């Protein structure tokens, strides 16, 4: 009987803590169109798989009457569970408890689950919904953030780290998501910024709403800080599960191998790319004509759209795609697209995901804004990322590959394993018009009809150099292939390069042009 009484007391205690910030605070949370922290976790993990830890953790702050306050769970829920049948670590900040503010006990709970995820080698999902540092705890809350950032960095490249922003995430708090691999945001709910609209208004006199400053759309379209945009929390959770279906659980594992499935017949690879290199098309259709089931999971779909990155399955195994997108800005490389692709290449390399590069670009975007924004440094990231990557690297040059763009897009010279080119490929030092203007400058200017002469010389150059055979003659291109062979050829190339051995000079780490 005595045991029963203790069990009852335990149940009572648990019941109390599970209420989080209480009825009123929960109603407020719901009124904002948000789920509660616990609902969020349960919506992400597989049914009945969630196990919570540190439910009874309490803070020991004394100043500002904090010793009289009980904060259930100290404003954060941590635990383990499963997604797609495989174990994961998860934490969710509870905005109903003191605004989800981060004190030292709160931070310790988070770092505990982070340590688990690294030690036990499984992905970490962090749900952020917090007003920021718990001011009453002073420098202790800063220490808490620091401990989290440090662990994000240690775990980087070992386990996948996913951040979900489902509320405010301001000041120092934003740096944990920024250090993780993928950031998910939801329209009208997610807000991220270093200094809020109030401070900006007081100090600088600039007036801007929270949504315009750091809403979900801004981070998906303008800053590139977020990777996945969703209209609702439930849509966001589906995206998380879908992404995890492509990812390996750690850098020493492979992702789940599925049954091979052919691409959908409605994507005819011979009917997507126009012959004229100046005409656009959607390169995602080419990807869909290559991958299993024509299923392509795009990353950062709304930012730097002139390059397309994402995951697909090829013969059941995960592959990463990096593709120039002629539909937007003619597919040029610029500051943002370099940044976007370089980081993705490094993610794939860290997690042993083969990289397929589809090349069709006229070069770099000209402009003072680009030069002054440091396109040299950002563009160099692409060279660095490709050169450093040791996973199977296969390129297919669909049409144009001019100048520096040719080198950057996983060329032979950056240790690509295989480079293929379609018959429509034009691999040259620059586009025919530009090249003819320089090489035949004298002939053109001294001609009776300079325009006619220019046209002739452009044709002459096209005939001689705008093809894949000059590069193939040097072995820079391994094979010229027909478009319909693409899937088969890539699949074989990845298969044979999957057991390659790469020798790197001994070093602590390189210094990429961050």
């Amino acid at each position: 009987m005595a045991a029963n009484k203790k069990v009852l007391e335990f149940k009572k205690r648990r019941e109390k803590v599970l209420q989080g910030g209480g009825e009123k605070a929960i109603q407020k949370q719901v009124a904002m169109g948000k789920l509660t922290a616990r609902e969020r976790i349960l919506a992400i993990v597989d049914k009945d798989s969630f196990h919570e830890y540190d439910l009874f953790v309490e803070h020991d702050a004394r100043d500002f009457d904090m010793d009289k306050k009980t904060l259930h769970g100290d404003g954060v829920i941590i635990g383990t569970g499963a997604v797609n049948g495989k174990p994961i670590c998860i934490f969710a900040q509870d905005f109903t408890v003191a605004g989800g503010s981060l004190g030292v006990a709160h931070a310790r709970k988070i770092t505990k689950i982070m340590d688990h995820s690294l030690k036990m080698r499984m992905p970490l999902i962090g749900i952020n919904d917090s007003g920021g540092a718990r001011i009453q705890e002073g420098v202790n809350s800063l220490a808490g953030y620091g401990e989290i950032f440090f662990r994000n960095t240690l775990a980087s490249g070992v386990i996948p780290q996913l951040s979900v922003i489902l509320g405010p995430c301001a000041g120092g708090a934003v740096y944990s998501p920024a250090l993780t691999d993928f950031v998910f945001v939801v329209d009208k709910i997610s807000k991220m910024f270093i200094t809020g609209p109030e401070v900006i208004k007081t100090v600088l006199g600039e007036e801007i709403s929270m949504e315009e400053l750091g809403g979900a759309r801004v981070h998906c379209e303008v800053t590139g800080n977020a990777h996945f945009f969703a209209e609702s929390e439930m849509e966001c959770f589906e995206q998380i599960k879908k992404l995890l279906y492509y990812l390996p659980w750690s850098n020493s594992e492979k992702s789940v191998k599925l049954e091979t499935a052919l691409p959908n017949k409605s994507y005819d690879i011979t009917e997507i790319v126009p012959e004229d290199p100046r005409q656009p098309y959607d390169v995602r259709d080419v990807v869909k004509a290559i991958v299993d089931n024509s299923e392509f999971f795009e990353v950062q779909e709304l930012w730097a759209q002139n390059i397309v990155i994402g995951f697909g399955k090829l013969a059941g195994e995960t592959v990463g795609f990096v593709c120039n997108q002629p539909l937007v800005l003619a597919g040029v490389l610029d500051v943002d697209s370099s940044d976007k692709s370089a980081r993705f290449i490094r993610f794939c390399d860290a997690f042993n995901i083969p990289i397929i590069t589809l090349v069709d670009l006229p070069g770099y975007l000209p402009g003072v804004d680009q030069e002054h924004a440091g396109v040299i440094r950002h563009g160099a990231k692409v060279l660095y990322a490709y050169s450093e990557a040791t996973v199977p690297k296969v390129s297919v040059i669909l049409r144009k590959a001019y100048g520096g763009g040719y080198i950057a897009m996983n060329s032979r010279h950056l240790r690509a394993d295989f480079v293929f080119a379609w018959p429509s490929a034009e691999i040259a030092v620059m586009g025919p018009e530009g090249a003819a203007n320089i090489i035949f400058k004298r002939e053109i200017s001294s001609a009776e009809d300079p325009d006619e002469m220019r046209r002739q010389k452009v044709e002459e150059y096209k005939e001689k150099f705008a093809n894949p055979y000059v590069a193939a003659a040097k072995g820079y291109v391994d094979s010229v292939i027909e478009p319909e062979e693409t899937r088969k050829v890539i699949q074989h190339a990845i298969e044979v390069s999957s057991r390659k051995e790469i020798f790197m000079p001994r070093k602590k780490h390189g210094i990429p042009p961050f």
Partner: protein
Amino acid sequence: MKKVKNPCDNNESCKALVIEGTEYRTFLNKKFEDRKVWKAPDPKMIFSVIPGTIITLYVKEGQRMNAGDPLVILEAMKMRNVVRMPADGSVKKINVEEGNRIPKGHLILEID
């Protein structure tokens, strides 16, 4: 290769973009369309490099000044920044008064 559908056909938001002499048909993104066109700086125009408040105005229109002489104090981020004369010359036109809050890139004064 077969004749394929061109996404630019009958689509007015498809624009021309010239890269190294070749004109490509493509869609532009917002960032590209909103980019600032670069203008050569005019040393006779003194702009604010940061938003803030004019705390002190040292000069009058027509006044002759030497290079390095203080023109105004612009307080921004709790710092008092002294804006100085870039070269010898005279103050042609003043566009601010003491106490004015000005945005970044505001023309404070013109010199001759």
